[in-house]
């Protein structure tokens, strides 16, 4: 359904070009659920942004249902059925939750929208709220998830949906992501949570802008754990002193 072929992403900065993603190859099949995990700054959100068209790859191709969408803009990809719940949803002065959900649904009746209830927000309390700084971090995050559920695209990418979500709602979140996944969806959840990694068909490990491993959770999880427990990642390389006792 969605293919990334040799996708690379470079950014121009003041200090010159920096490489964000390198040679990403992915085949995301219809009806499957995926988790993308990996260290902070490894490039997980960048993969999502490249799929959504927010960042355009500097090399490689992206295919959606065998159609090359590499050069399509964000709007066109959204219209084809790609959707992305941001890691850090922007806030809007003056816009209300109901306005955002209406944009996401385009058609259909707000009254039918279970999307807020599904993630534990009571519509009466939230529909009229402004999507501005008055919402808490967890609230805005949940509204972002509700918006993607309302949009109901074919390809659903959730970027760290659990971040800032309380323990009670976390279970509900997992349930709703799972129960709204249909045969013709691809669901991608960027996450660091074991529970989420356990519910998907395939785990993709991104490290240093590259895909370093992928596979089902039984084979991947032990290796991720081992790699995560490795102390070397948390140590700094100081002048002349290198902490290099990493087993890998």
């Amino acid at each position, binding site marked *: 359904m969605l293919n990334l072929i040799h996708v690379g992403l470079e950014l121009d900065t003041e200090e010159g070009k920096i490489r964000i993603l390198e040679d990403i190859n992915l085949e995301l099949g219809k009806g499957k659920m995926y988790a993308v995990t990996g260290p902070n700054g490894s490039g997980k959100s960048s993969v999502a942004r490249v799929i959504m068209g927010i960042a355009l790859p500097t090399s490689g191709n992206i295919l959606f249902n065998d159609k090359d969408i590499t050069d399509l803009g964000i709007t066109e990809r*959204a219209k084809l059925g790609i959707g992305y719940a941001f890691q850090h949803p922007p806030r809007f*002065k003056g816009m209300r939750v109901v306005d955002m959900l209406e*944009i996401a649904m385009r058609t259909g009746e707000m009254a039918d929208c279970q999307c807020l209830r599904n993630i534990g927000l009571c519509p009466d309390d939230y529909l009229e709220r402004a999507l501005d700084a008055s919402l808490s971090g967890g609230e805005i995050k949940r509204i972002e998830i509700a918006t993607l559920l309302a949009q109901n695209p074919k390809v659903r990418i959730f970027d760290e949906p659990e971040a800032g979500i309380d323990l009670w709602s976390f279970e509900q979140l997992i349930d709703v992501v799972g129960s709204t996944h249909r045969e013709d969806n691809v669901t991608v959840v960027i996450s660091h949570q074991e529970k989420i990694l356990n519910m998907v068909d395939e785990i993709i490990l991104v490290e240093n802008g590259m895909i370093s491993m992928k596979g089902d959770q039984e084979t991947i999880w032990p290796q991720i754990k081992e790699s995560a427990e490795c102390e070397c990642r948390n140590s700094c390389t100081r002048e002349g002193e290198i902490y290099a006792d990493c087993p890998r």
Partner: protein
Amino acid sequence: MLTALDKKLLQETAGLEEDPPGAYNIRKDGEGIQRHSLPGIEIVPKKDKPGIDIIVEKDRTGTVHIPVILTQSDLSDLVYNTIEIGPGADIELVAGCGIHNPGHGEARHDGVHEIFVREGARLRYTEKHYGEGEGKGKRILNPKTVLVVEPGGYAEMELVQIRGVDDTVRETEARIEAGGHLVIYERMLTHGEQTARSDVVVNLLGEGSAARIVSRSVGQGNSRQVFQPRLVAYGPGRGHVECDSIIMDKAVIRSIPEIWAESAEAELVHEAAIGKIAGEQMMKLMALGLTEGEAEEAIIKGFLK
């Protein structure tokens, strides 16, 4: 008789479909054409100059509509209105001006409002500006409002001008006495070659007087805007000024909020920001399927609501 055009202008400025509910005065092309008083809400023409006196009796509640419409070119209309909201009264007043300038000459309305909100009274005041017309003639509006809020009174002013008016200079001056409250919401969108200037001076006089000014604007095209709200506290008053603008294209926006305390008991805050639409906001809406133009519009619409 009201023509179809008159009705459209009335709809745009005052949201009127039919005869207004409550008391009203409709002014067209420099003359009062319809007037309706109610017991306790008296509307009388001024004797010495163009304009009306609106006198609301003590404890009266109700609505008053006083729209002004201009449908001709080469017309300059100057009007003085005095509005007196009696003690304890609770009134919704809808003013506003709609201009349809068909020709190439100017169509201009200068309104001077004097408003007294007496002890314990409440006033909700809305003033909408609307302009249209096929000619090249400028549509000019220069409202001046002088407001007094007496002890315990409350006034809320909503001043709206979205497109359509070429030049506007708005002056608002308020005097808030002990325990009086004033809230001003200003919404403005200019485009093309339009210019707009808004000067607000609020004087907080007595103990417990308070004022809040919230100004939101969008500047597009080559338009120019200047906002200069000033809050002066002479005693233990509280005030907050907030100016927030979205700037686009080649527009120029100046925002100069001023707070001025004459007393150590005063608490005054101002905030001002000018910026373009955030990229992340655009991307979020486009990821929901809106085009760039639609996303921009949705953001502006929300911002100015």
